[in-house]
């Protein structure tokens, strides 16, 4: 008797779980925002959530700002920048906002009327000023505010789901009371760092209402999406703290794509991944551990199409991916082959660029070790806050020196120094505005780049390998205003030495090689392509691409990993054929690549080409 009851109960519980499996889906408020690093699966989860709520009989509007958005593809209809009913899912409508297009429309609104009136180079300078990340961020948020506040537009929907969320920096700018009164009421004056807002026509009241809606737990839920990887968890932790401080208190955490321990199928790489993921989850930021948390298992199928998305939030057992061809390790150029070509120059600056978490520091170390092994003098300099990988290399290899720049430390020093010098004569109100301005993302980039510019000068005699670099946008502005040039002149002092500006050095492929680092996944490849476009605007042509952590470059037996390897091929093909002049593929290793031997394994992808 007692033995049977639990069985029946568990069946009931199971049914409940299948109907309503995720915590973040319980009693959802009107607005749901999904946020996280690029590539964690925000858009897929937002789509699956929209389908789930619509299936429950709710009327749902799905808003996607993902530049790689395949929302239209998923539902088999073109969507675009207007609300479109999704016939395949009764109750669901969708809308795609392209932040780049929104930013372009904003630029056109400002620049269009003066084209032909002002000199061409002046117009070009204005456009560059308005090409930064802040403009894009603000222009996208401008589109949101209508959805958060305009009741005629949205009253037909019980839930509005966004696959992104405004950053703390954006919201702080919107909240800045002094800036509002200075700028929007008078239309002129001393708005600090509110620049990108100036051309936006929405009223102050609408922005305030939008920010109020965001901060209201009855109306808004923020879902942080991460992978079981340190970099995405750290990012989620930062977003959590930043947005909680601004008043977005109702937050949930979703760990997406967790490798099911039962599915390793005696594959040593799969077992290593499971172990690494568990370790990352144990070490996640403490603030995150207090949030209601869901885990979504890695699925053996591609998250494309309605059926696949319906199963994403369910707990279906992994299916054998039997239909996949058994693939041997991909034959692609190795990192060692790239380094052979780099070594020919004897010296120069190597900058590894890419989004956080793609493995810039590891690959910078691998490149540095490869060069040092060839007997060439190398200075590896890293800004990775957890740079123990690079630190362990110091002094272990002849010809190799290692130094480290702590971005938080140099940024804090820089802020303190600016406040102490330039802010010394300001009154309390003036200092407060200056302090707020110094929290902008520009500040860290400038502080770090100043620190790096001291090291760059060594590249005339030896190899300098850096794991970070300024964006093309930054370089253009620094160069356009001449501020950077002046800075260098000041640093060089009156030594009378002939010099070229770093901009000239960065544009010359003989002196500088940019290596774009990415992963073999849709969003990271797209982000890397955007980075490349940005650099090209600054006259810098990336020398090569490196696809890191590739499963396709290994031999695996686990069906889940075989599926992943299979999915990677399309992305690697796009890199090879469309994006990169040269490329290399670096395999995913079983162990963290720490220490000389393992770094060398990275350079070999097991295949001779």
């Amino acid at each position, binding site marked *: 008797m007692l033995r049977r009851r639990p069985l029946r109960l568990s069946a009931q519980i199971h049914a409940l779980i299948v109907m309503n499996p995720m915590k973040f889906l319980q009693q959802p408020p009107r607005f749901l925002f999904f946020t996280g690093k690029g590539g964690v699966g925000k858009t897929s989860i937002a789509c699956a959530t929209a389908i789930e709520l619509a299936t429950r009989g709710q009327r749902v509007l799905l808003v996607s700002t993902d530049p790689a958005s395949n929302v239209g593809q998923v539902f088999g209809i073109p969507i675009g920048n207007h609300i479109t009913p999704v016939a395949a899912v009764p109750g669901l409508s969708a809308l795609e906002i392209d932040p780049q297009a929104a930013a372009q429309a904003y630029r056109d609104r400002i620049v269009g009327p003066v084209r032909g009136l002002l000199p061409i180079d002046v117009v070009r300078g204005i456009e560059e000023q308005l090409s930064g990340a802040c403009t894009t961020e603000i222009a996208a948020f401008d589109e949101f505010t209508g959805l958060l506040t305009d009741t005629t537009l949205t009253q037909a929907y019980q839930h509005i789901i966004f696959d992104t969320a405004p950053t703390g920096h954006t919201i702080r700018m919107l909240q800045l009371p002094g800036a509002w009164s200075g700028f929007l009421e008078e239309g002129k004056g001393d708005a600090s760092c509110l620049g990108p807002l100036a051309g936006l026509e929405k009223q102050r009241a609408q922005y305030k209402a939008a920010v109020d809606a965001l901060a209201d737990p009855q109306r808004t839920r923020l879902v942080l999406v991460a992978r079981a990887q340190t970099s995405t968890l750290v990012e989620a932790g930062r977003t959590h703290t930043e947005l909680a401080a601004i008043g977005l208190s109702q937050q949930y955490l979703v760990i997406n794509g967790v490798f099911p321990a039962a599915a390793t199928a005696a594959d040593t790489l799969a077992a290593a991944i499971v172990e690494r993921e568990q370790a990352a989850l144990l070490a996640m930021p403490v603030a995150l551990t207090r949030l209601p948390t869901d885990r979504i298992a890695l699925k053996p199928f591609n998250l494309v199409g309605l059926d696949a998305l319906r199963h994403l939030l369910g707990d279906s057992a992994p299916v054998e991916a039997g239909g996949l061809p058994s693939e041997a390790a991909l034959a692609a150029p190795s990192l060692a082959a790239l380094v052979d070509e780099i070594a020919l120059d004897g010296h120069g600056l190597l900058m590894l660029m890419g989004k956080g978490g793609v493995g810039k520091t590891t690959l910078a170390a691998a490149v540095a070790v490869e060069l040092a092994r060839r007997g060439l003098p190398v200075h590896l300099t890293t800004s990775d806050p957890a740079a123990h990988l690079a630190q362990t290399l110091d002094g272990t290899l002849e010809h190799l020196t290692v130094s480290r720049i702590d971005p938080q430390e140099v940024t804090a020093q820089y802020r303190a120094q600016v406040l102490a010098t330039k802010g010394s004569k300001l009154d309390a109100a003036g200092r407060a505005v200056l302090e707020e301005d110094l929290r902008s993302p520009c500040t860290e980039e400038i502080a770090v780049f100043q620190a790096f510019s001291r090291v760059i000068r060594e590249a005339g005699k030896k190899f300098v390998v850096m794991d970070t670099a300024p964006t093309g*946008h930054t370089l253009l502005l620094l160069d356009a205003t001449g501020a950077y040039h002046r800075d260098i002149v000041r640093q060089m002092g009156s030594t009378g030495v002939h010099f070229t500006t770093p901009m000239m050095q960065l544009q010359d492929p003989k002196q500088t090689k940019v290596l774009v680092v990415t992963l073999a996944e849709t969003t990271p490849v797209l982000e890397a392509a955007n980075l490349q476009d940005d650099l090209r605007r600054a006259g810098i042509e990336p020398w090569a691409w490196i696809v890191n952590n590739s499963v396709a470059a290994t031999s695996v037996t686990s069906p889940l990993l075989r599926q992943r390897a299979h999915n990677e091929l399309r992305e690697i093909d796009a890199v090879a054929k469309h994006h990169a002049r040269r490329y290399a593929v670096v395999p995913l290793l079983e162990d963290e690549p720490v220490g000389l031997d393992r770094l060398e394994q990275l350079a070999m992808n097991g295949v001779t080409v």
Partner: protein
Amino acid sequence: MKNIQIFDPALCCSSGVCGVDVDQALVSLAADLDWAKQQGLVVERFNLAQQPMDFAQNATVRGFLERSGAEALPLVLVDGEVALAGRYPNRAELTRWAGLAAATPALAEVAPAGGCCAGGRCG
């Protein structure tokens, strides 16, 4: 009341913190303008990156840009006539233009203006 207008180069933040080296001239100007406001002075500022139309519609400013380029900014007009170019005004100059009584010693150390948002991402 005199009409004082400052035409800034393309700035991201008029306080000047975004540059590779925070521009003391902009930081000081912000303080000086705050002071001027308390004296009842009205100073208008136009940012080339945000209000280019105001540059284009003013014949004096447009002519200045055509002759000397954006790098010669800022430009200060008093009642529509050029009062200063290539640097920002200090308190003494603001006082003189406004016809106020002798001002407290100027705070601003005058230096050529750099692009404020040279640092980038705010643009």
